[in-house]
């Protein structure tokens, strides 16, 4: 069964950077899915579930047009409670982080500009934890 990592951000260059980063480290084992909005993200989640692909990590921006990152994670959490959820945000909204922590089992809020190594390490350690 294939696994996937979903990245949600309204900025394309962020998604591209994330894609490069993640595909370098996880490209062999994981499918990297990109979504430019929360709505797209939820759609992709449904879609890949139909394809029998398991989403294991969601990295989401917080400030996006339409649904905000924390709300998106809360929604995703309802369907995929086990998924590792990470907020990748430029500006921390404390209420939003708190919301995500309480209602979406948020693993970590990573602040932009992020450090690739740290992000990859964070995902790896969480994946390891998940697999064990």
């Amino acid at each position: 069964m294939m696994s996937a990592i979903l990245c949600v951000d309204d900025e394309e260059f962020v998604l591209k950077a994330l894609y490069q980063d993640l595909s370098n480290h996880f490209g062999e084992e994981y499918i990297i899915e990109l979504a430019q909005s929360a709505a797209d993200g939820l759609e992709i989640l449904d879609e890949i579930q139909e394809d029998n692909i398991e989403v294991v990590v969601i990295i989401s921006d917080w400030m996006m047009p339409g649904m905000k990152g924390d709300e998106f994670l809360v929604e995703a959490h309802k369907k995929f409670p086990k998924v590792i959820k990470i907020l990748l945000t430029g500006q921390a909204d404390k209420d939003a982080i708190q919301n995500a922590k309480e209602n979406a089992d948020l693993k970590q809020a990573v602040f932009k500009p992020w450090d690739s190594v740290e992000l990859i390490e964070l995902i790896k350690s969480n994946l390891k934890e998940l697999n064990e």
Partner: protein
Amino acid sequence: MHFFKNNPFIKILSFLFLVSTLVLSIYLYGVFQKIENKYKIDTLKQNELEYRIIHRNLINTKKDIEYISKLYKFFNDNNNYTNSEKLKLFSGNIKRLIESKKVYSQVRFIGIDGYEIARIDYKDGKSKVIDEKNLQNKYSRYYFKESLNLKDGEIYISKFDLNKENAKVEIPYNPTLRLSTPVTDRDNKIIGYVVINYLGSDILTELNLYAKDIDTLLLNKDTHYLVGFTPEDEWSFMFGDDTSFKKSYPYIWDSFKNKQISSINHNGIQFSLLSINPVEIVSPNRNAKSRREWILVSYVENEKIYGEFYKYIDSIKILIGIFGLLIVIFSYLLATYMKKMNLANIRMEIADEVFKNTIEGIMVVDANTKIIQVNKAFTDITGYSETNVYGKKPNLLKGEFVEESDTYKNMWKSITEKGHWNGELTNQTRFGEKYISKLSIGVVKESGKILYYIGVFSNVTKQIEDKRELERTALALKNSLEDLQKAQNKLIESEKLTALGELIAGISHEINSPLGAIKSSSENVIDSVSRVIKEVPKLASLLNDDEKILFEKLKSSIPLESSFLSIKEQRELRKKIKLQLDELGVESSRYFADKFSQFNVENIVEYKSLILHKDAKFIINTLFDEYSTISNMYNIKRSIDRASKTIFALKKFAHFDHDREGVIEKIEDSITNVLVLFNHNLKQGIEVVRKFDDVEPLYCYSDELSQVWMNLVSNSIHAMPNGGILAIAIYDENEYQVVSISDTGHGIPKDIQQKVFEPFFTTKKSGEGSGIGLDIVKKVVDAHGGKIELHSDTNGTEFKIYISKNVGK
């Protein structure tokens, strides 16, 4: 009346006219009096003259009768003649006498028995001795009876009346006076009487002869007219007519009665009356009983007096005219002079009042610089009274304060050269108090020589202090204003900072996102490049020539800038490619589809041999690494562009140009800039609809306009917490370019729509905004010669900002 009151000429003329009229009247009255008096005297003199005539005639007659009497006695006593001889001689003498005298109509000698003894008549120049036989007895006649009472030497004089012949009045009238006197013999015994008829007409003619200018009446005792106003009056009493003077002029008569002489003006006639007693003239020794009275009345009618008076006036009328003219000229000259004098007097009075009452101190100093006069204000200011300073030098006012020597030097120089000096001096009052005197010195000269110095001064200590205080206050105000302006700028800055604070969340995201992407991408470049270096030589050994060509073809078909495919499109592409790969039965179709979708290469069948290659993953990976290097670089570039844009917008916004240098710019630019800053905030459910017409760039204060858009966009975002549409339009309208910013927010309540432009008005929570926003908007728009229109209801708000195209022109 005003004219008369204020015209001295008329005043003087009227006065002089009245006075001279009065003087003239008095003078003329005097003249009249004199004339009247002259006539009065003339009447009196006339009376006197007439009296003398009567007197003379009567005396002559008296002498004649006495002579006749003596003549008769002489013959009678002479015994040398017979009686008839005596009579003959007597008659002859008498005949000659009366012929020479011509005034006696009859001379008789009547014996004591009443018989005429001798009678000589005279008529028409001839005398006649009457025969003895014609002689008559006259014993019963009144004159004889009267004569009987006479003593020796006494003379009887009859009434003055008309002679009667045979009891009838003789015609023509023969006014007659009878005189008689006794004749005695040697024994002094009366033997008879001489009786003479005196022709009254003679005396009356002579009276009239002298009545030229002045007429004279002669009245008898009963005031019957012997000489009357008219001939009709005369002798009328002889015919029983009772016409008389006392009846005609009772008032005059009453005032004269019992007097000897009188003069009176009555009924337009000047009368002078004089009583004459003829008995007294001819026979002064007779007793009072025998008294007889005639009255002389000389009169002149007033008309005659007036006539002379008028004649006099007529003779002096030219003189009066000249005098009148002189009065007019004199009045005019006097009026002119008085006017001058009056003006001078008024000036003097004004000067005096000013001197006394002005609040400025005045001192008059003579040529020897000694004070000779000061006013009350002088004492009020300096404390020195008049007596303190008279004869002293003005420098006593200095007290212990001495100005720089130049001050006095300049003062004297100015006074001697220009005749005046103005300035301020520090002086000391008598009580030692220091004050500043604003002094003005002038001079009074006469033929170039200075007579007096006039010093006018006031105590300006307080004014100067006030002025200094004012200057201090003004300076303080100026500083306050500057502080206020600084504060205002700070406030504007603070408002901006508040806005910035709100933006920070978005901005930091806007910055951090590209930063993150740059960081990540750059690391990826390093990774992919290092991998490519290792992989490329290995790849060459893995591929045969055909595969090498195909690889190069694939490589060259990859568009280097892949951004024209969106994430979504790329995902769709990946799905398509995967389906193709699945059809080809390629393992790891998802993996290859992913890479090919990145390459944006849809026709994978062409590269089947590479995909189906045993080292397909290595081959494609190597290509991907190569591709990644470029792709990451582009991503870095895009991220940097994005970050730069944000930083630029922020910098542009944060910048505040206090010097306000305008620029020529498209309005669109500053709006776009602001929208960049709000990019992040607008993502929260707000759709931005732009309708920018292609309008000309215009002169504007771009930074300030940014604040306007900042405020309005920010307000719109705040008004739409749940999203909505922010529509921004730019278009031309007459001399304006209009920017319409409308939202679908909750609107501004009607009751505060007018207040929103007031400074510090806010509906936001404290900390969200100072409330100065729309005030700034208004100020900036005003500076652009524009206006603001606000339309707001519950469906949203539209601000229309009109920017004049003519600013800076």
